[in-house]
């Protein structure tokens, strides 16, 4: 199988999406005769080339982070450029990976509906949408914390390379938790705010000497002065 992969992260080669795709593609390539080509949608000057790649593809994987509860604007620009291909005979099968910083999958479910409809609109066979939360920060996490995630992506890619489908159980597991409940919700309430402040964002704010300004409200503060 030949797979055409679009990385829709505005961070491009420095993205968490890239890390997820690397492991997926490592698994995908374990099947003999599988090949792939990869494009970064943040290369804005290559828009025409992306449409050509899509038009010639056998199978497409579009992966991106959740931005304001939907696709990043760059990805929407790409989707709009595909409009002339809607309903064309021979359009590729298409699958999606949506990752977000929120731990719960619920944040991405409305977008999942959109993506399923997009596949129908284009006339593409819909492979499915993989939703994975809790991804922000994986680039700086110790390997023991990401090992399980990367192994799941590898297995997902391997099975996809063998069957052309997303393994339902792996997709289901990656999408957990759907919502925070019980003890997990309680622990987020009690320590989540403290942890998120002190361990990740605050460290970066201090590195940038911006910690003292972290609660700035530039648009109302300036209006008052």
């Amino acid at each position, binding site marked *: 199988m030949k797979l055409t992969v679009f990385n829709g*992260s*505005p*961070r491009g080669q420095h*993205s968490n999406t890239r890390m997820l795709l690397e492991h997926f593609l490592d698994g995908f390539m374990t099947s003999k005769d599988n090949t792939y080509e990869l494009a970064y949608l*943040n290369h*804005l000057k290559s828009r025409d080339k992306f449409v050509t790649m899509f038009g010639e593809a056998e199978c497409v994987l579009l992966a991106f*982070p959740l*931005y*304001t*509860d*939907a*696709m*990043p*604007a*760059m990805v*929407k*620009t790409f*989707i*709009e450029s*595909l*409009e002339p291909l*809607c309903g064309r005979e021979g359009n590729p099968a298409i699958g999606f990976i949506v990752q977000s910083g*929120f*731990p*719960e999958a*619920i*944040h991405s479910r*409305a*977008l999942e*509906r*959109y993506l399923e*409809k*997009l596949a129908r*609109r284009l006339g593409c066979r819909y492979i499915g949408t993989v939703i994975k939360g809790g991804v922000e920060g994986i680039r700086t996490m110790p390997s023991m914390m990401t090992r399980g995630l990367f192994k799941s992506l590898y297995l997902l890619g391997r099975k996809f390379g063998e069957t052309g489908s997303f393994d339902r159980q792996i997709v289901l597991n990656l999408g957990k938790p759907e*919502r*925070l409940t019980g003890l997990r*919700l309680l622990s*987020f*309430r009690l320590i*989540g*705010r403290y942890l*998120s*402040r002190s361990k990740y*964002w605050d460290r*970066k*704010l201090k590195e*940038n000497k*911006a910690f003292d*300004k*972290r*609660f*700035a*409200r*530039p*648009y*109302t503060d300036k*209006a008052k002065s």
Partner: protein
Amino acid sequence: MKITIFNGNPDGGNDVFDNYLKRLSDALELREHTVTTLTLREMDIRYCIGCFDCWLKTPGECIVADASQDVCRQFIASDLVLFASPLIMGFTSALLKKAHDKLVPLIHPYIGIYHNECHHMPRYEKYPLTGLLLEKGRDSDEEDIEITSEIYRRDALNVHLHFASPG
């Protein structure tokens, strides 16, 4: 009431849409509202590149000095923001989404629990009521409107907005 209309129509030739917004704006002003329309296609707004500098280097402001800073200032000073766009490929325009992505400085990176879900903490005391005004395209259907509304409703939860569904 201070109302801001985000005109996400990317096509200057689509004067039906722009004229509709003009008539709407006039009608609202007749009722003593102050209306500002941001014609986004005429503004220099760059894509959000996910650098998070608006959270971590210049908290509350995009590090790129483009027109998104004017958009943010106008947004936070409004009582009502109307996101207006033709439906293109089943969703609001990339042009509107570009402006929308750049509202991120208005919230915190910090996460809190709201409605039993993780959401960003608010940076400001007050956020506007938001609404969605959609123009159907040739291939639009009720499902597109429902999905788009649902995505905007989800986003309103995150940005601590009160979202008024299209009626």
